[in-house]
Each structure stands twice: as C-alpha cells, then as structure tokens.
C-alpha cells in the first residue's frame, strides 16, 4: 500500500462558530483515505512535511515516519512556527531601526559592535582545504570550529591543520569542535580527553544527544574544555534545565530560533548564570548587532560565504578577527534581486492565514 495524495482543506464549522479548522486527508492506492483535523495555521507545514516524508510511503510504517519527522524537527528546530516568529521579529526590528534612521546596534542601545569572530567548517558544505584557506585569510580570526567525525585520527589531523592555519593571527588559538550529538557521554569523555592531551580546546558542542542535559553535564565535569550548547534549543524555557543543571558552560544562541527579542532575553538569562554567549551564524552576519548589547557576549560564528558572494549583501565586515557593523539604518543587509548567479526568485502566491 502506498500513500498517493495529501490534501489540507481549510473549513468553517457553522456549529462551532467562526473558528476555522483544517481537514487533512491522506489517500492511498487501495482506495482508502485517512483523515485528521488540524489547526489552520499548520496547513503549510502539514503539506510540506507530508510531501517530504509520506508521499509514496507505505502508511502502515508509521513508526518510521514519526522517527524521521523527529529528526527533521531536531535539525530544523522545534517547529516552523518558532522560526516564523524569529524571522518576523528580525524583519520588524530592521523596520523599527530604519524608521529611526539608526543601525540596529544603535537602536538596541549599544555602541558600535566589535565582535570576536570565528569560522566554522561543516563537513558537508565545503572542502577542508578551502576552509583552511578562509581561516588563514583576510578575516583574521583567532578561532575556528570543526565538525568532527568518527575517525579520531582524522579529527586530530584536522585540528592540527586548523591550529596551524590560525597561527598567522594568534599564538593562542580558540579551537572548537562540534561532535554533532553522535556520542554517548562516556564516548565523548574519552574522545575529548584524548584530543585535550594535544590541544587546548575552547569548547566542545554536540557532546550528547539533543536534549540530554544530564549527559552534557557529565561531560562538562570530566573535560577541561567548556561545553557549548543551545544551538538546537528553540525556546527560553527549553534552556532552563541546561542552566539549572550546569549542563553547558557556553550558551549558543541562534537568531534562526530567537530573532532579536528572544536572543536578548536569553542572553540576559545567561548573564545572570555567569555564562558566556556565542551566536550562531546568521544570513548577512547581522547577528553582529546583538553583540553590541549582550553583556556576556563571547563570540560570533561567521556565515560563509562572505558578503558579495551571493544575493545577500551585508555591511558587516571583518577586521583582524573582529566583526564590525556599519552605519546603514536597520541590519545593513540588502537582497540583490538581480544577482547574476543561479539564484532564481520564484513568485509565490500571497497566503493569508485568517
């Protein structure tokens, strides 16, 4: 049996008043149809998730669907709604600052940010050699982060390459690794301790499975490096067990989940717990503005590729390893609709959610 169609139809229920619902129908080749009722605002997510994970699948394999959807939620944050809130918040701050003719850093009450920046390498996106070229290049950063794999010797070699690539900029490089949540706590402790016999690691992230704050705490207690966590958490409340159980030593905040407003709230909470804050890369490197007002700001991850290489242009520049914002009102980020690359803008019909 295979799922052959997914529909999500908004409806008004005259008996229950003006509220609308959404009828979800899964049709299968056997002539069967499964239905459920959803909240209307979830319609786009239902269609997207259904098309990605259910179409063409056997509807009897429900456990597999639940697992894959869970993985998707982990890697993309809790839900589309949270991301939507964050993005709208950023756009609204951009607008507010533009209305005041101020760059965002000034609208937030900060001085011009000069933010400690680092470059990171994500296994899939870039070959290692070009990452190293970026590291020793014009950014001038004193820190770098590697997504490490399952081969300890390869991890060691790559860290050594990274350390050498940073040498032109600093004698005390900030070396960071992301273990991607693949380890159990004791694996993490063994692997990290082995690396620490050779490298001074500033932090390690992804040391436990997503959500395993007790495992993270255990790792933190057993290694020298700080444990960094939070990049995959998407609400202020979700951080509470991490704060309470001392499960992280550095708090990573992703504007993708927190926008501006939420990021500042979270940074204040981290400051209250004496925890340094690091910011996940954001399009146009506009997260540099937040560094101006976060009291325990530690570092910002730099978004590749640099400004000018894509349709997103940004005023943010990098000088001797510091991210510096410009004076243009708002975030200083613009979108080039006529970018002569392989980017095409697809017009999408406006969708009203009422």
């Amino acid at each position, binding site marked *: 049996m295979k799922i052959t169609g997914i529909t999500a139809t908004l409806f008004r229920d005259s008996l229950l008043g003006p509220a609308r619902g959404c009828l979800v129908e899964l049709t299968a080749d056997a002539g069967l149809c499964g239905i459920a009722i959803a909240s209307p605002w979830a319609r786009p997510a239902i269609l997207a998730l259904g098309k990605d994970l259910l179409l063409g699948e056997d509807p009897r394999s429900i456990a597999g669907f639940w697992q894959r959807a869970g993985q998707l939620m982990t890697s993309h944050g809790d839900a589309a709604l949270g991301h939507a809130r964050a993005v709208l918040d950023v756009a609204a701050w951009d607008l507010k600052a533009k209305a005041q003719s101020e760059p965002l850093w000034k609208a937030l009450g900060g001085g011009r940010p000069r933010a400690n920046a680092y470059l990171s390498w994500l296994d899939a996106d870039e070959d290692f050699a070009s990452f190293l070229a970026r590291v020793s290049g014009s950014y001038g950063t004193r820190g770098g982060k590697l997504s490490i794999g399952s081969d300890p010797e390869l991890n060691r070699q790559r860290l050594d390459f990274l350390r050498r690539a940073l040498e032109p900029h600093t*004698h*005390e490089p900030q070396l960071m690794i992301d273990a991607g949540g693949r380890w159990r706590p004791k694996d993490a402790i063994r692997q990290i301790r082995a690396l620490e016999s050779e490298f*001074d690691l500033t932090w390690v992230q992804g040391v436990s499975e997503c959500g395993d704050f007790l495992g993270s705490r255990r790792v933190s*207690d057993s290694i*020298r490096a700080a444990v960094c966590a939070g990049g995959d958490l998407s609400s202020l409340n979700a951080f509470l067990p991490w704060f309470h159980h001392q499960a992280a030593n550095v708090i990573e905040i992703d504007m993708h989940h927190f926008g501006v407003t939420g990021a500042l709230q979270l940074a204040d909470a981290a400051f209250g717990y*004496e925890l340094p804050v690091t910011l996940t890369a954001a399009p146009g490197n506009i997260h540099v503005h937040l560094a101006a007002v976060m009291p325990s*700001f*530690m570092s910002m991850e730099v978004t590749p590729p640099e400004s000018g290489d894509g349709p997103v242009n940004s005023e943010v520049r990098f000088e001797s390893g510091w991210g510096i914002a410009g004076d243009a009102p708002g975030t200083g980020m613009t979108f080039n609709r006529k970018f002569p690359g392989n980017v095409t803008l697809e017009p999408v019909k406006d969708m009203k959610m009422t």
Partner: protein
Amino acid sequence: MKITGYRYETYMMKLDRPIADCNLPEGVELLPGSILTIETDENITGLSLGFGGGGIESLFPLIEGEDPREVTRLWMKIVDHIHKGGNEGAANYTLGAIDIALWDLKAKIAGQPLWRLLGAAHGRVKAYASGLDYCLSDEDLFTFYRRMADVGIDAGKLKVGLDLKADMRRIGIMQDALSTASKKPVLTIDANEYWSPKQAVRYVRQMEEKFDLAWVEEPARRWDYRGLRLVSQQVSAAVATGENVNSVADFYALVANQAVDVLNVAAGHSGVTGCRQVANLAQAYSLPVSMMNCQANFMAHVAAALPNHIGMEVVDPGREQCLKFDNHIEDGYIVLGNEPGFGISVDEVALAELQANPPKGRGTFPLSRRAGAGRYIVPLRPGEVPWRHSSE
C-alpha cells in the same frame, strides 16, 4: 569613657614601584589613602587605615557618646542602622573604618597590642609574598621575590591570566627567586576574576602539568558559587576567593556550596569584627583563611589570633610614607611588637607634606576590569607590559 569626636584625613601616595594584575597590566603608581581617628574624652584615640570612601559624618552620630570598649555592640548597632542598604559600598567602608579604629582604641585602653587583646599566643603571623606583579619585568619580578626570600618568605603569589606561556615562565622565575628560602616554595596564582570557570580549568590544568599550585585565586566571579565549585572540582589546586566581598553574608553561598577552599579574609569584610566572623564561619567548615595585604600589615594582629590562618599576603610596595609602625618581617613571619593597639601612629609632618604636594604618577587605584573578561582573553598589546609575551 566616651567617644567624643573624629578626624578624617585623605591623601595620595606614590608607590615605590607600580602594582598591577591582568585587568590593567600596565599598572598604577598612585594610591589614595585615608586615616580615620576616633577621639575620646580621656585623650586616647583609635586609628584606622583605608583608601577612600568617606561618609563618616553620616554614621558618627551612632557612636558619639558611646563607650568605645563596647566595639562589638557598636558594630551591630551600625549594621542594624544600615540594614536596608546592607553592608555595601560607602556605608560598609565606613562601618569597617569605625570598627577598626574602635578595636585599636579598645586595645590601647587595655594597654595591650591588639594581637594579645584578641587572645593570640604570639604576635607572629606566617607571611607569603605577593608582588601584584603583572607590570614587573622578569628581572624586577625576580628581585622582588628574592628580596622576600631574603627575609625568609617561602611562598609567593603571581598575577596571571592573559598569556599562559609567559605566566609559566614567570612562575618559574618566582620559584627560583624563593628557592633560597625553601627547597619547595609554595606557589599560588591570582587571576582577579578575568576568566570564566572553564577558561580557568583549561589554564590552570596546563600550568599544573608543570607546577604544583597551592591555590588559584579568584578564578571566576566572586559570587559565582557554582562556577567556583566547578573550578575547584576540576583542578588540583585549592580555589581561593573572597577579598572583594563585603561581609560574612557574602560568604554564605560560597561556603555552603563548597565553592571555596581558602577564604581570603580582609579588613573590607566589615572591619575587624566582620573579618573574624568570616574566619569563624570558615573554621566551622574546616576551611583555612588567608589575610589580605594592607598598609603596615596592620591586619596581622587579627590574623595572629585566628585558629585557621595559613599565611598573610605581604606586598610591601611602599605605602607607609606617613606612618610609623611596630612590626617587621623575620624568618618568613610578620613579627608584631608590643606597642598598644595596632602599634601604628601617624607621622604628621609627612602627612602634611603629602597633602600639600600630592605626588604625581601613572594611573590610579582601583584597577578596572579588562575587556573580554569572563569570555575571551584580549591579548597583551605591544608595550603593555615590560616583559616578553607570546605575541611578540
């Protein structure tokens, strides 16, 4: 006997050498000083040494006409009066200054040195050398600690925090300089709250691969009991902290949460009375205390009578230009004399000269917090210190 009046003098002094920690590596040469004298109807006065603050006029009415021998009651009376704001800021400074002067007075009335009045068996206190030395060249660093070793001091505390390799070299210099006093000098380090807890762990563990450190001081912020405990659990050295907190109340969370292994006690903990309370709290938890440095080492009188005192900080940067004092260092101990009270008096001529012609010099106390503190290390700039660092 009654308290009748007071005299409050302020002045500026220039040190024999600059002092610094990693927050302000270039250091300062100037230090503000203040002297509070409490007067009685029997022509006997009590003296207290400090470095600023003021506000005596607002608290003096609380002790005017009172018997100065009832110092503990008067301490409580002032504490109850400032209840809402607490033992904080200028009020706490003035409380401490009054309390110190009243203890001086009480001992003078009894005709005893304060160490004896407080019940000490001997007027002797073990000393450790502390250069406040981030601004000293390697040569001057050696000279300072060798001078200390020459009077028998076998323990030293190095300011560290910005440059691991250079700090390792310099702790070796300190060790060498002290080696004439002991085959195994006691080595301690002080980061003055520049690091985050995990930065401290990384830094100290690397130092511990080569040096046996007795304690690391202020490896995290003074109130961060969980961070300090984390450091204590992850390094071999003891965690020492407390010199910048205000009273026994501020030590409560630190002690109750095992965040501190050595308590740095000081006159700043609400005077002699408050300082003794802190030491007693520590004693109840089987924790040692170490007295912070001060002008003319006057707090050695208090340290001498503490059951859990392990060593008092001696800096000796030249802060006694207008003071006469009755103690010296010998065989590694501060040896207190038999003059009544703290055994300290004011050289009025020298004081008047300092007030009439305030000395000029580089920088003033206190040392502000350095950028990057608690988050990342801002490396030393060329010329910021007179010694070789890694970025050179």
